[in-house]
């Protein structure tokens, strides 16, 4: 048992897999010598050498192309896109190439690759460096989409992603990098597509992801003190999506809320709500409420950013209001 930051857990998880599998390599901008601009790959160059940990030019298409071509020819590469906003400069590689190649080739080509990226807001980086874009990936068939919320999940889900034979986008929340928690010693391998019940509850189900998980949990505590007992689910991956756990919880609580950092329209919560009103309709005792960032770009000023990203207060208030009406 060691206490580890979410940030260090990233390198820890990658190292665990590089240790056991020669085919695992890492490429990205400033990931080697500098240990990553977010310090999520510190020590890997020193430990695994310059053949396996590689600094690249500023060329995201070239990075992901290298990752994809290596994956189809025997390696299990991990690529880094520094900020997830930058997926927009290489989206063709992700959405049109990686996601579709196995299908188009009728299974001839496997793409065991991971693209890790710093995602999300609260660091005052403004509209082009703060987005939560998991929903961009969820909308494209052929991509697996992972977002851990704790250090131990970072390690276990990174291992699972690297061992997965499909392309996985691994979203690290920049606002969680500094958070700490205990991480068991020895190898940790988790499973993609399993949500976790972070807090059991009977009155309402709150589904959250990434930074919104700790906020939903704190909100749940406040709500408990006001007599509302919420169950908080951490989705952990959007694809595969653990529909079973969500619907089971809904069947017990009869009320459903999502807490999303992404802008409102077609955030991942829209899919959860749409599934609920289809497959879970007869369980619903009231509207499904999505608590999201409004449909605006993210402002840079701290006072404004704090206003738009769902806060503990807002989550608690919105849930309480909905439960009372």
């Amino acid at each position: 048992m060691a206490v580890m930051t979410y940030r260090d857990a990233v390198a820890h998880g990658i190292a665990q897999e590089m240790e056991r599998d020669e085919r695992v390599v890492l490429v990205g901008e400033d990931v080697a010598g500098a240990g990553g601009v977010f310090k999520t790959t510190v020590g890997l160059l020193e430990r695994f050498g310059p053949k396996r940990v590689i600094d690249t030019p500023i060329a995201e298409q070239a990075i992901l192309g290298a990752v994809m071509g290596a994956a189809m020819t025997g390696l299990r590469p991990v690529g880094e896109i520094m900020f997830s906003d930058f997926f927009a400069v290489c989206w063709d590689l992700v959405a049109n190439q990686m996601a579709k190649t196995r299908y188009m080739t009728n299974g001839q080509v496997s793409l065991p690759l991971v693209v890790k990226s710093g995602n999300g807001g609260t660091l005052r980086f403004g509209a082009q460096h703060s987005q939560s874009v998991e929903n961009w990936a969820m909308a494209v068939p052929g991509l697996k989409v992972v977002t851990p919320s704790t250090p131990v999940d970072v390690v276990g889900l990174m291992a699972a992603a690297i061992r997965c034979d499909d392309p996985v986008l691994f979203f690290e929340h920049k606002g969680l990098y500094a958070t700490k928690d205990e991480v068991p010693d020895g190898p940790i391998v988790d499973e993609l597509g399993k949500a976790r019940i972070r807090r059991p509850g009977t009155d309402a189900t709150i589904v959250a992801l990434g930074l919104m998980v700790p906020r939903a949990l704190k909100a749940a505590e406040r709500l408990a003190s006001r007599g509302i007992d919420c169950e908080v689910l951490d989705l952990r991956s959007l694809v595969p999506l653990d529909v079973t756990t969500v619907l089971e919880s809904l069947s017990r609580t009869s009320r459903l809320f999502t807490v999303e950092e992404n802008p409102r329209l077609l955030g991942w919560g829209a899919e959860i709500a749409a599934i609920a009103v289809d497959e879970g309709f007869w369980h619903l005792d009231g509207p499904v409420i999505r608590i999201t960032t409004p449909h605006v770009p993210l402002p840079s000023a701290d006072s404004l950013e704090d206003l738009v990203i769902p806060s503990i207060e807002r989550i608690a208030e919105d849930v309480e209001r909905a439960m009372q009406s």
Partner: protein
Amino acid sequence: MTLPLETHPYGEHDVVMPPNNPTAHDQSDVPLDVRLRMYRVLHELRQFEKRAYDLFMQQLVKGTSHLSLGMEAIAAGFATAMRSDDYTFATYRGHAHTLARGVPMEAVLAELLGRSNGLLGGKGGSMHLTSVEHGVMGSYAIIGAHLTIANGAAWSAQYRGSGQVAVCFFGDGTTNIGAFHEALNYAAVFALPVVFVCENNLYMEYTAISDITAVRRPAADRAAAYGLDPVEVDGNDADACYLAAEEALARARSGAGPVLIEALTYRHGGHSRADPGKYKPPGELEAWLAYDPLKVYRGRLERLGVEAAQLDRIESEVAQAVDAATDAAKNGALPDPASAFTEVWADGGSSWRS
């Protein structure tokens, strides 16, 4: 602001003439058996593409398709020079490169027809031909990406120490997109064993490359920007392509890094089936038809004393093969409906939920 279409009407740009140098490689050192193999390949590609065209006209091939008629020497020359485990990366104009690596005609034709015996079971189509067992790592239909993907295969070959080289084919128009630049710099920085082959057929879809490119030679004039030497080759002379390929492959295999080759050629037909063709200046097509790669090569073999009868025999054997492939493709069953839902994931399925 100078606008190309202000300086000349559409389709009235300067004609680019072929090299018209059919004897250039008569004495070059290419073994006769290799030359005869290439002659067969040239005809396989030519006759296959003509058949594909006919099947379009019969509405049997749906969607779109991009033929290599007139460009066969490049595919034949490079594929013949490649090691059997080298990697080919092609574009939507990939029939020729796929066949030249030995992929059966039936599988390719059946894929164009959307049948279950198609190379991709009907799921990929004409623009995405792939046969991993033949080293054909894919045909990519969105311009640019596959240059960067070829880098990845080259990187993996280096890492594994396999000695394989990745060969990536693309068009003149592709040299103006960002991914070209990223791929070339990246390959040069890491000295990747990759050979980039620009098939310069003078046009993108319906626009002359000269109208929208800042330099005369879209690939060769960019080589220096990546610390590479400009390499130009007569893309209608199979020997020229073969020799250029041998040299480039050897260089890349030796660890000396990437090579960028510009092969000058011409597309006899339209860009794709819907092509109006208004963009070619008068006389240009005729000049290139006269320098047809198959004519050039047959002439050389005859000058080298190969019996016309032997060449005719090769052509008719190929014709029979194309007919047989056509029948087999036409007789292929439609894909199993269930196949629409397979192979999204490595587990064989398409489920997104758990």
